[in-house]
């Protein structure tokens, strides 16, 4: 059998291949030859064959059949064989394969070999890929070599020990004695690897850390010698003596000095010296300065030193070298919390970095910029950040938009500025904002009462320009629905009011409904907005038409809304104005912008009220039992009524609308009551269902709840079956005056621990002279069996004028709630 071709020749041959297929063919041929050679157990050429295999492996071809051969090479006595064998092991084997354990014995022998280069090979392999089992077996040998006087082996043993400790942390203790005089070595290789070993031990064990603190003076001395010593050709790099060792020592000092006053003080001088004397013209000097700065910031250094460090970083920011700028931004980000003012001084340079072409630098600069925003610089910073948002890559837009919202929320100098800023974000990066920004913005707008006209005008104009960005469109639709009347009346003070007609506005909203760009959620918003305008505009017929068209929409959500709105026009027209009235100011939770929105279910404090979805109609993304819980502020005269947030399912689920009632405490009487609900239309049938079973409820006396101005309201009681905790109250409203009471609406609210449901009234006209009564059923769930109290609100029209009254009902008979 001819001798297998040499490695170089194979490489040459393979490189002549012109196609991938040709290469593959050559490789396959050679592999076959190598395989047969392996089978013949040929010792002479095994080394050559494995080397060729390693080359082919690097090209991407499978070479696992050579693994055992590597082991045989390692076991050979020839140095050449061992060299290639260990290399092969490191390339082809990994610790997941059991076969690697076969190496252990060979390595053990080689660790004790008479030739240091063989020992070196073994240490290198163990330190590079030794598995935990191998490390456990061989730790003792490594520890022995750590104590040898041969610096060539000692340095390798130190790094091998580092690997052992990483793999088997429990073995750390056994290396402790050997570390005793590692630092007294003159040899830089040993010094460097020793410092690495000490660093590893200190990072892993607080005990070790405490133990090694005493080395600080020695480390400081070594560092000082490096700086002060003259030119040493062996270790010189651009005029600096052994920068690798300097950096490692600085890093170890950082770990030892952290949180420890004495150590920090001991290293103060040397840090100052390094910081001021290091040559900064080349990368190597800057590498040392960088490490120094990190150390200064982490230990308990005196303020003068800290300022020095930040200034170094400031200089880095101005460096032409991109790498230096990157490193500076990263470090500043780490220190901005603790040394905020010092970093602020470099704000303008940091902001300039936003315009850098490099992606990594831009990202760092953006993060740092947001960290530096405060009440004083908000206007200027926001200008820069918005400009950045305009021009940055898509990968940044979402984070930048969130950051802008957060910063605006915290530091907005005025409401108008805040709204303008958010609008700017929505128009430039609208598709990248997070989902929760829409309700946040709506809430912000609602609460800026004086800005309503300005806001709706700006949003309207934005819609005319572009309807593709959904969050913007949703907010705009909602606002137009709410404040469309302000848009028409041209009341805007902040800027030139625009002239717009009802038809134009409706055109825009209808346009959203039909546009391909609108998502189903957006369509829902616009349909609701159109509906709301029915009480604010006069083109009711047009709106009725639109609503009825969508009653047969394929989109179930839209269809349902349209059907309900249609019903509002037909059967419940008397409720429409109340239902579609202006939203009240919503109280904010203690949130920080686009983070948590507290979900209320009436069980929380009255001040913590934030509906997940402000519009008083169902949002398709709403959670199952999202409830609108609106508390009017005391001076807000608007009546709130809510539409049910969830349609009744086929199972006839009851709507639990929680009337929240701040009884006692800060709310002065009379606070407007929380709204009573109107059940969904589908539940209409329930009021006549025999849900009420008088059997168990017999014996609860009726009571008069209200009697004023000729209007008398009596309550009669029943207990519902099967739930004994539910009290069913029927109100009977009668009118003893000579004029009818028309548009009669009864509302009720109960304390937090109760749940209340109001079914539809028999009519909304209370006939005069007691000729008839209006009845309405209230169901109260009283799980905690607390004393029932109720606040009621009555509105009606009497003799042409609107009447409104509030009353508290406290005289419930005990049997009704026990």
């Amino acid at each position: 059998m001819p001798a297998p071709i040499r490695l170089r020749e194979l490489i040459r041959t393979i490189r002549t291949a012109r196609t991938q297929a040709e290469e593959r063919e050559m490789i396959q041929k050679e592999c076959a030859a190598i395989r047969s050679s392996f089978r013949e157990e040929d010792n002479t050429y095994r080394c050559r064959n494995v080397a060729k295999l390693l080359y082919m492996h690097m090209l991407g071809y499978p070479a696992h059949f050579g693994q055992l051969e590597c082991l045989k090479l390692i076991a050979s006595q020839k140095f050449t064989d061992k060299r290639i064998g260990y290399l092969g092991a490191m390339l082809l084997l990994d610790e997941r394969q059991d076969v690697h354990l076969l190496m252990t014995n060979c390595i053990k022998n080689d660790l004790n070999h008479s030739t240091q280069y063989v020992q070196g090979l073994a240490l290198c392999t163990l330190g590079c890929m030794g598995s935990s089992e191998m490390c456990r077996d061989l730790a003792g040998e490594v520890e022995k070599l750590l104590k040898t006087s041969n610096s060539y082996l000692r340095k390798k043993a130190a790094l091998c020990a580092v690997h052992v400790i990483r793999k088997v942390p429990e073995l750390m203790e056994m290396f402790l004695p050997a570390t005793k005089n590692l630092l007294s070595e003159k040899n830089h290789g040993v010094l460097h690897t020793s410092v690495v070993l000490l660093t590893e031990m200190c990072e892993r064990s607080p005990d070790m850390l405490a133990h090694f603190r005493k080395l600080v003076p020695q480390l400081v001395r070594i560092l000082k010698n490096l700086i002060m010593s003259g030119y040493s050709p062996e270790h010189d790099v651009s005029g600096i003596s052994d920068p690798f060792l300097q950096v490692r020592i600085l890093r170890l000092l950082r770990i030892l000095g952290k949180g420890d006053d004495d150590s920090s003080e001991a290293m103060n001088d040397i840090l100052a010296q390094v910081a001021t004397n290091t040559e900064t013209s080349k990368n190597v000097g800057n590498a040392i300065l960088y490490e120094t700065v990190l150390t200064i910031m982490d230990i308990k250094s005196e303020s003068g030193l800290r300022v020095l460090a930040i200034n170094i970083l400031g200089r880095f920011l101005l460096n032409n070298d991109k790498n230096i700028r990157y490193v500076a931004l990263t470090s500043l980000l780490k220190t901005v919390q603790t040394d905020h003012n010092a970093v602020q001084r470099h704000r303008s340079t940091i902001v300039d970095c936003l315009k850098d072409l490099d992606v990594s630098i831009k990202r760092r600069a953006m993060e740092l910029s947001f960290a530096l925003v405060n009440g004083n610089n908000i206007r200027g910073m926001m200008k820069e950040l918005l400009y950045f948002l305009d021009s940055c890559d898509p990968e940044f837009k979402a984070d930048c938009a969130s950051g802008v919202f957060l910063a605006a929320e915290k530091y907005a100098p005025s409401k108008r500025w805040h709204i303008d800023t958010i609008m700017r974000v929505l128009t430039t990066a609208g598709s990248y904002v997070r989902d929760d920004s829409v309700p946040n913005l709506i809430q912000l707008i609602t609460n800026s009462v004086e800005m309503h006209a300005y806001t709706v005008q700006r949003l309207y104009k934005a819609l005319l320009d572009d309807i593709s960005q959904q969050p913007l469109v949703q907010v705009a639709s909602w606002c137009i629905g709410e404040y469309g009347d302000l848009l028409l009346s041209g009341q805007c003070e902040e800027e030139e009011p625009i002239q717009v007609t009802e038809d134009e506005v409706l055109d825009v909203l209808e346009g959203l409904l039909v546009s391909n760009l609108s998502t189903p959620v957006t369509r829902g918003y616009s349909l609701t907005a159109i509906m709301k305008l029915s009480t604010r505009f006069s083109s009711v017929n047009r709106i009725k038409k639109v609503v009825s068209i969508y009653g047969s929409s394929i989109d179930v959500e839209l269809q349902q809304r349209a059907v309900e709105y249609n019903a509002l026009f037909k059967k419940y027209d008397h409720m429409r104005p109340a239902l579609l009235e202006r939203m009240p100011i919503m109280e904010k939770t203690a949130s920080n912008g686009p983070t948590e929105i507290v979900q209320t279910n009436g069980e929380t404090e009255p001040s913590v009220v934030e509906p997940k979805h402000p519009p008083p109609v169902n949002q398709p993304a709403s959670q199952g039992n999202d409830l609108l819980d609106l508390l009017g502020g005391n001076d807000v005269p608007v009546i709130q009524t809510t539409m049910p947030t969830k349609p009744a399912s086929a199972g006839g689920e009851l709507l639990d609308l929680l009337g929240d009632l701040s009884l006692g405490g800060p709310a002065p009487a009379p606070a407007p009551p929380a709204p009573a609900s109107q059940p969904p239309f589908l539940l209409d049938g329930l009021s006549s269902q025999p849900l009420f079973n008088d059997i168990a409820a017999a014996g609860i006396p009726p009571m008069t709840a209200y009697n004023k101005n000729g209007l008398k309201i009596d309550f009669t009681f029943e207990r519902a079956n099967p739930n004994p905790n539910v009290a069913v109250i029927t109100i009977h409203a009668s009118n003893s005056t000579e004029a009818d009471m028309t548009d009669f609406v009864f509302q009720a609210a109960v304390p937090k621990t109760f749940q209340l449901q109001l079914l539809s009234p028999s009519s909304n006209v209370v006939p005069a002279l007691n000729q008839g009564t209006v009845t309405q059923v209230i169901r109260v769930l009283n799980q905690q069996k607390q004393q029932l109290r109720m606040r009621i609100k009555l509105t009606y029209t009497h003799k042409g004028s609107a009447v409104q009254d509030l009353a508290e009902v406290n005289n419930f008979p005990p049997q009704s709630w026990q």
Partner: protein
Amino acid sequence: MQFMLLFSRQGKLRLQKWYVPLSDKERKKISRDLVQTILARKPKMCSFLEWRDLKIVYKRYASLYFCCAVEDQDNELITLEIIHRYVELLDKYFGSVCELDIIFNFEKAYFILDEFLLGGEAQETSKKNVLKAIEQADLLQEEAEGRV
């Protein structure tokens, strides 16, 4: 350091040294993806990037890219110096090293690397000492082969 890769401008791997245990398949995937990412970068961009959850430091010397993945606490600027030192060692050994030298003598490139770094950390900071050790080892090899 977690690993070091050397690759050409066409994306061909010339050396791969792994200091973390990963399967062949995982290594292949990482190499392929990282090489693509780096080759896509423009020449003026900075030498550092965050990739997956690693810090990558890379530098191009002639037709070869030298790329290292380092840990969070590692100093990026000194890693650039490490790369530079390795190139200097290769240069001294081969005499004005070029990519072809590394292609045809890849095993030597590994040997030199293994005398400079061990387990991902520098074991010898003196250029002279590394080269001396390699020289001696080569001598040993020649003697061994001479005897056969």
